[in-house]
């Protein structure tokens, strides 16, 4: 066979494979839209998104997912508050401060933790953390917003840490040396030079970590408590969107209003993660470090 023919075949092969995976994903998205939109025949968009009562099997049923949206949002926000500082600081420590030997041991450990199955974390939260929280804070129940956020934070820390670490580690040595040469201390160099230089990578890490938290199902199903209400305090039980979908989908009759409502909830969830990724994309372009002189 001629070299050119081989080149062409390989090119078409790769294009086919790439097209295939993109098409499949696109079709799943279309499916989500087509299965979710019919709910608007039963309730208005406003009632669906801002309705505070979720009674999908009552007669008459109520399909308001506001409480679920708020729950997802709060759980993600709170887990971010815990996970972002911890994850980024661990990354800074590993890339800049720790000795090579420590970093070599700790980094794989952190990456190993990223592969922890979520059901294990959920079980831990349910059996160990829930009673602990209940006793420590003297509250009636340990399965709540706080517990779920904590567990999600544990899940996203490894993601945030390991991607940030890569970003920080890849900051050009010359920048650091220049900073030292100007008389900056190590701390000043980290805060003023290294972190700003790797900010786009750190942002990507944060957004990826948060996407993982917002889409996470098993953990919130097990430890969030599952009450479909807008929480009044940190220790109220909540019912984030993925938990609601997972718990109810198996029993929702095919093609019923409930079934469409769950798909529409999935659509809202998808919109959330989509916006997350757009923001991540924007930030990583906006603050991209091009060359060493642009800082």
């Amino acid at each position, binding site marked *: 066979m001629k070299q050119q023919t081989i080149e062409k075949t390989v090119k078409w092969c790769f294009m086919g494979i790439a097209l295939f995976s993109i098409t499949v994903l696109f079709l799943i998205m279309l499916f989500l839209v087509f299965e979710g939109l019919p709910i608007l025949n039963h309730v208005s968009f406003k009632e669906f998104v801002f309705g*505070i*009562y*979720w*009674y*999908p*099997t*009552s*007669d008459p049923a109520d399909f308001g997912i506001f*409480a679920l949206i708020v729950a997802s949002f709060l759980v993600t926000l709170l887990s971010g508050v815990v996970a972002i500082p911890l994850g980024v600081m661990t990354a800074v420590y590993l890339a800049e401060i720790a000795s090579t030997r420590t970093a070599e041991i700790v980094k794989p450990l952190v990456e190993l933790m990223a592969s922890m199955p979520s059901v294990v974390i959920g079980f831990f939260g*349910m*059996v160990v953390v*829930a*009673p602990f929280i*209940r006793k420590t804070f003297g509250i*009636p*129940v*340990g*399965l709540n917003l706080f517990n779920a956020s904590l567990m999600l934070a544990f899940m996203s820390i490894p993601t945030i840490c390991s991607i940030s670490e890569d970003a920080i580690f890849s900051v050009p040595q010359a920048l650091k040396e220049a900073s030292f040469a100007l008389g900056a201390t190590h701390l000043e160099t980290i805060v003023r030079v290294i972190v700003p230089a790797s900010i786009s990578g750190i942002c990507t890490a944060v957004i990826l970590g948060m996407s993982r938290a917002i889409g996470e199902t098993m953990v919130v*199903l*097990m430890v969030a*408590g*599952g*009450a*479909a*209400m807008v929480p009044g305090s940190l220790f*109220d*039980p909540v*019912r984030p969107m993925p938990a609601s979908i997972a*718990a*109810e989908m*198996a*029993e*929702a*009759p*095919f093609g019923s209003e*409930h079934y469409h409502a769950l798909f529409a909830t999935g659509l809202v969830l998808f919109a959330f993660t989509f916006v997350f990724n757009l923001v991540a994309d924007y930030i990583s372009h906006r603050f991209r470090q091009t060359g060493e002189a642009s800082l």
Partner: protein
Amino acid sequence: MKKTIALICVAVCMAAMAASPALAGELVLKGSTTVLPIAQRVAESYMKLHPDVKISLSGGGSSNGIKAIVDGTADIGNASRFIKSKEIKLATAKGIYPVPHRIALDCIVPVVHSKNPVSDLTTEQLKAIYLGKIRNWKEVGGADLRVVVISRDTSSGTFEVWEKLVMKKARVIPSALTVPSNGGLVQAVGTTPGAIGYIALGYLNDDIKALSVNRVPGTPETTRNGLYPISRPLFMFTNGWIKGRTADFMNYLLSKKGQQLVEEAGSIPVY
């Protein structure tokens, strides 16, 4: 010579086919997780008696069990509730005639933390608790402790029975915790001092305490004689009247031995 061998082969094959009992084959059961432990025990014991029958079992909930009968993906659909008129319409439209078989009874008991002094509630009190009108245990003669209402997911069969028999179709307060399984509920109630929940009688263990309802304790006797207010029959649905191996299996389940297995699974025999 070759011909004779071929003929012998055919003969042997036919003989083998004729000799195999008519009951051999596969039996598919799908549906309610409440019926699952019963079906599991009976299936195991039935397969020991009839090694040529393969029974495959799966859960997925009552609605899925009935759906499986309507779609023809199972021989037997398990359900912890009776078929809904919507589902009957769907089935008859497809030319399917679901037949219910009452195979066991189930009794749903309200449960509290083992250290809770309250031991009896009326159905009205239970309803008021789940409506959020009673918020402290001292209102029903207990300690000064906030009531933590724990419910099951709205799609579970146990929830449907509770909604029908206790709530009388009124809505459980939104702040009630929901748990996706009987086992999860036992875990949650067992570790929360102020909790109240409800489970199928078979899941009762020493970590939690069952309450009597209207002064009637939930037991097999009170369920069978109808005194206990929160009980329900469990069903297996088939397409049309049973025959062949489905009939044989069902007869076994309703025999004395089968009903004994029902009891071992934590449900209540029909007789």
